[in-house]
């Protein structure tokens, strides 16, 4: 919970850390609806779910069976629920002209408000996303009546250029949805949660933009996911969480838009970002 009392105009975001099961879509959908109901009771305006929350993460070629179109009847209950709060879900999206995207879909008022397709598909170590998905073509904010959100899917956030670019788009907040696996070490929580803490803290502080992070927890196909969902303000202070690593949780985070705007006025780092330097390096390398 936020440290100060909620004010008029605050945004209340629910981070639904759920344990999905690959290929058990009806079960996963039921978990969504249960979490949305709890989030509404807590006064949430927006409920964010993890990456591929509808289908499960380790589908592999199961995406061929389980990829959805945006008008799939399976999504109807979520669209209905979105009349009460905006909902951000992750799913394998069957593209009209072929290919399947790893997508984040923003629902509000019974409609699809926007889709972000994952840009960076990790294909190394245990990851094989480049084999099953096509990469997203563009990076732009998703908007709904609640504001403008920089939505990133897991590996997207590991490329700091994603947040640097989006930070110039007058965002209200970043929402990072993830299916982040983790190993265990001597720490009291899975190691992945610590890595996310560093990355998301850096994103929030360097872009002076709040970050909402929802990760999945639990096990799929023998792979442990690290949870640790978290909300952090634009100065790096915790708003809510981190959620416990191994348990399903619903975090309720209050964001003060006024405080976020003040922070960007006092610390206008993103306005000074010289994105042309990035392209200059690329041009020199390719010359």
């Amino acid at each position, binding site marked *: 919970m936020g440290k100060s009392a909620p004010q008029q105009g605050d945004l209340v975001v629910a981070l639904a850390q759920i*344990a999905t*099961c*690959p*290929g*058990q*879509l*009806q*079960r996963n959908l039921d978990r969504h609806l249960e979490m949305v109901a709890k989030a509404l009771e807590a006064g949430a305006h927006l409920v964010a779910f993890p990456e591929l929350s509808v289908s*499960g993460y*380790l*589908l*592999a*070629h*199961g995406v061929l*069976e389980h990829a959805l179109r945006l008008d799939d009847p399976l999504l109807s209950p979520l669209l209905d629920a979105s009349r009460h709060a905006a909902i951000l879900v992750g799913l394998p999206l069957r593209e009209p002209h072929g290919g399947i995207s790893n997508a984040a879909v923003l629902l509000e008022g019974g409609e699809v408000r926007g889709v972000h397709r994952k840009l960076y598909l990790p294909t190394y170590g245990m990851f094989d996303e480049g084999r099953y998905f096509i990469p997203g073509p563009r990076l732009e904010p998703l908007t709904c009546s609640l504001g403008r959100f920089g939505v990133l899917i897991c590996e997207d956030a590991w490329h700091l250029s994603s947040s640097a670019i989006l930070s110039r788009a007058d965002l209200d907040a970043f929402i990072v949805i993830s299916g982040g696996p983790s190993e*265990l*070490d*001597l*720490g*009291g*929580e*899975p190691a992945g949660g610590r890595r996310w803490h560093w990355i998301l803290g850096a994103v929030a502080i360097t872009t002076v933009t709040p970050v909402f992070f929802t990760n999945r927890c*639990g*096990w*799929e*196909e*023998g792979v*442990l996911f690290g949870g640790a969902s978290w909300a952090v303000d634009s100065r790096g202070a915790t708003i809510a969480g981190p959620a416990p*690593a*191994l348990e399903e949780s619903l975090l309720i985070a209050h964001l003060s838009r006024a405080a976020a705007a003040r922070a960007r006025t006092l610390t206008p780092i993103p306005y000074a970002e010289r994105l042309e330097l990035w392209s200059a390096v690329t041009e020199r390398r390719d010359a």
Partner: protein
Amino acid sequence: MLELPPVNVQLLARALEAFLAEELRASGLAGYFVGLSGGVDSAVSAALAAAAVGPEKVRALALPGPASSPESLRDAQTVAKAFGLELDVVDLGRPTEALAETLGARADRVRFGNMMARLRMVALFDRARPVPALVLGTSNKSEILLGYSTLFGDAAASVQPLGDVWKTHIFALAQVLGVPDPVVAKSPTADLWPGQTDAGELGFDYPTVDPVLYWHHEGGMGRDELAASGFPPALVDSALAAYRRNRFKWRPTVVARVSASCINVDRILPRNPER
């Protein structure tokens, strides 16, 4: 000397319990069936399963053979009692002897030992069927990497909660889970012939070899780097030889791909879709 990085065993135990709970839920089956050898691996597996799904959903079998030591059965009974598990004892002595006689394998202790291990697998899967239950594996990462197991014998199971856990860490897990001390303290053995121990057959014990395997398998260090970092060259050579020689056991079978939809090559699919 390089060491095996430590792990938070309390968190490891909680995570593995969650794994066993989820695998059972996703499978739709009713419980687990575990073979208790009287050793630390099966004791840890059983303790994790009992904590994960409740002891009433975990059934145990002790499967002594003609050469099993009496302490093994006693220790299996101690473990079952410690974790509240119902234990059946099935003496595999006569069937193993009979099959060995039929196949002419009695004089070869490795063939006889493998047969014993595979008959234990037969018993576990048979008893699991009517429950219906998943067969709970007890193999650990160290023995899998070294190939110190019987293919389709003790290596066969529905789930392997310890398959990515170093044996060194299993001793630590045993302590936090409350495995009785005599079971933790005794020398690891497959108990396939009198006096057999893992260390006697492998030529090294697990706390000695685990750091070598870790820095090679996960750390990416080659033979010369390992030796230069202080590991005895004979230990390194012996460990890496087993690591290479028995690698076929990591993937127990290979399917000849002759189509564009070869199972587990062109089509890797989740194990437990909605039914």
